[in-house]
């Protein structure tokens, strides 16, 4: 069987000693930068790029890929422990992961995150091996019309996501869409609401907004109530997830992996959609949705699996079509070209040991990550033994350095400060900031794709229902909406919220 041969070829490349070492270096660096809030994989890969010139193409790509998915692992650690989402993808992990940590269950949360990521990584490796060609073809079918419909679906998922009132989460999505329009309008090139500040021309960076709303605002609120946060630094005995935890988490892992694998292939939506969608699905399927946001283990397992699966399947367009799905994949293309390899569909046939080697290395890398991370859970949790009075200034500092480092801009630090104050306000009036972040990430794409679709169809809105994929996606939105508004669901929601 050809697939089998390909995987064997890949494994024989990935298991060479030097490639194993580069893979290990990659995932360890990735974990480290993931744990440090704000230092994303993109600047790290850029920094390491020149040092990969001397390596074999396969080794360099294996190491750089390791940094990428290693960072996804590490990012969830800070999200769970200190409520600082270092990456877009770990925002959702904050919701229930940090809640679990507050209840003294940081250990199980971290372990489940690692196990889910490993599981998803393993499955995604197989998905890439089996489905890369058909999936890449599907991704190419996505034009502006389909993207718009997909984004509408994603935003509706966000409404289900919040554990407050539907009205408040809708308002927060709108708020996110609003600040998402800041910057130069892609379709007309006109600057909107930039108030003459050049740093706003490309819109608001996601990381300072997330760090301000989640990390710093949380610290401000925490310092007001000394009794609640002490819970975080106590009860560290049970580090290992119980059998019941695993049983609860497993179906969520499966679903998350599926969602992540499918959405990761699509360029653009990338990092934000898979975990948010997985969380929404888990909450929808749960017998008792009210547990979400209060430390539900499925709320960690599903998004973490989705996030890792998505990170890996986002390599599919790169490896099969030479098309980068996100900024990091664009860097990988840079790395390939520096090695004298023109990325494109021909790479698959001309350099099979490179492509399959990288794919197989994802599995070995995920295994390494699990082995590194499971024992580290104890180390991370013991970090919480540091008294909060010392921990929080350090978090503040790392947030500052991290936001600065994204594009070496002081403006981002000020932006984070502003968002911290707004986030504190949100905590005081009891609204959940997660839907805002989704609106911020997806809003600009929503508008861009809608307007592009209209431009290309000469202003004919019927394209959204005449193209099959788009019609299907919008159909799901209608179903969701009907389900959400049906009396039975409304009653159940009311019950859940009245607690």
């Amino acid at each position: 069987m050809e697939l089998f041969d390909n995987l064997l070829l890949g494994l024989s490349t990935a298991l060479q000693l030097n490639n194993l070492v580069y893979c290990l270096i990659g995932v360890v660096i990735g974990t480290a930068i993931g744990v440090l809030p704000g230092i994303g994989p993109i600047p790290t890969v850029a920094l390491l790029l020149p040092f990969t010139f001397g390596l074999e193409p396969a080794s360099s790509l294996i190491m750089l890929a390791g940094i990428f998915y290693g960072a996804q692992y590490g990012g969830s650690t800070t999200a769970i422990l200190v409520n600082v989402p270092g990456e877009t993808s770990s925002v959702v992990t904050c919701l229930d992961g940090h809640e679990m940590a507050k209840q003294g269950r940081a250990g199980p949360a971290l372990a489940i995150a690692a196990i889910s990521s490993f599981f998803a990584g393993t499955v995604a490796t197989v998905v890439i091996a089996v489905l890369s060609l058909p999936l890449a073809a599907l991704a190419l079918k996505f034009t502006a019309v389909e993207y718009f419909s997909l984004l509408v679906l994603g935003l509706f998922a966000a409404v289900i996501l919040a554990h407050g009132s539907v009205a408040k989460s809708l308002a927060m999505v709108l708020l996110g869409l609003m600040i998402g329009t800041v910057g130069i309008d892609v379709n007309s090139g006109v600057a909107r609401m930039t108030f003459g500040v050049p740093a706003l021309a490309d819109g608001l960076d996601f990381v300072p907004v997330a760090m301000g709303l989640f990390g710093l605002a949380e610290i401000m609120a925490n310092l007001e109530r000394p009794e609640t946060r002490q819970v975080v630094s106590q009860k560290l005995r049970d580090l290992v997830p119980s059998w019941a935890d695993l049983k609860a988490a497993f179906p969520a892992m499966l679903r998350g992996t599926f969602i992540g694998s499918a959405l990761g292939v699509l360029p653009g939506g990338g990092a934000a959609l898979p975990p948010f969608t997985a969380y929404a699905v888990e909450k929808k399927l749960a017998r008792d949705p009210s547990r979400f946001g209060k430390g539900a283990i499925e709320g960690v397992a599903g998004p973490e699996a989705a996030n890792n699966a998505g990170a890996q399947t986002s390599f599919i367009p790169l490896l099969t079509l030479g098309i980068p799905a996100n900024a990091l994949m664009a860097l990988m293309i840079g790395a390939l070209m520096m090695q004298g390899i023109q990325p494109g569909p021909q790479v698959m046939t001309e350099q099979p040991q490179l492509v399959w080697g990288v794919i197989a290395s994802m599995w070995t890398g995920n295994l390494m990550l699990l082995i590194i991370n499971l024992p580290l859970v104890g180390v991370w949790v013991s970090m919480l033994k540091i008294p909060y009075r010392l921990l929080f200034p350090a978090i503040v500092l790392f947030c500052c350095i991290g936001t600065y480092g994204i594009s070496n801009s002081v403006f981002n630090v000020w932006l984070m400060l502003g968002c911290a104050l707004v986030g504190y306000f949100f905590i005081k009036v009891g609204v959940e900031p997660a839907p805002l972040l989704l609106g911020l990430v997806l809003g600009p794409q929503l508008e861009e794709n809608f307007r592009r679709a209209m431009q290309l169809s000469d202003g004919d809105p019927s394209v959204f229902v005449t193209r099959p994929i788009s019609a299907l996606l919008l159909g799901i939105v209608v179903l969701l909406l009907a389900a959400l508004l049906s009396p039975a669901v409304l009653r159940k929601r009311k019950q859940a919220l009245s607690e």
Partner: protein
Amino acid sequence: MTQRRIDWPDLLFGLFLICVAAGAFAATARLSGGTAADMGPGYMPRAIAFGLLGFGLFFAGRGLVRPFAGIAQVQARPILGIAASVAVFALLVEDAGLALAAFAAIVIAALASRESRLVEVLLFGIAVSAGAVLLFVKALALPVPIWPW
């Protein structure tokens, strides 16, 4: 005063949304709107602003008629401490270097908590700043100066 009214969280959130909507209307007044089929740059922000305005009025109105709900007391010290810490970092980092900016950020942030102890904070600040310089400037090559000179 038999029954107290006003749900403060709702009212304040509503007013906040109204302010954002008003700000957005003001900031996009100059942009051309266009139609839904051929949107100008101002169409989307204004459409969203209308939505925000609607929600704002809804929450504010609901807040006024709902039974009383208070807001947990706001303490100035944590807010001012954290805000000052971030602000000082932003002001110092590019000119005075990371070492001083990091140290100042740690010490000022510590002021936000009543539990901080002076000597401990100073020592911790020195240690973390040194670590940050080594990690970010030396190892990760963050392009900032270490010292002001």
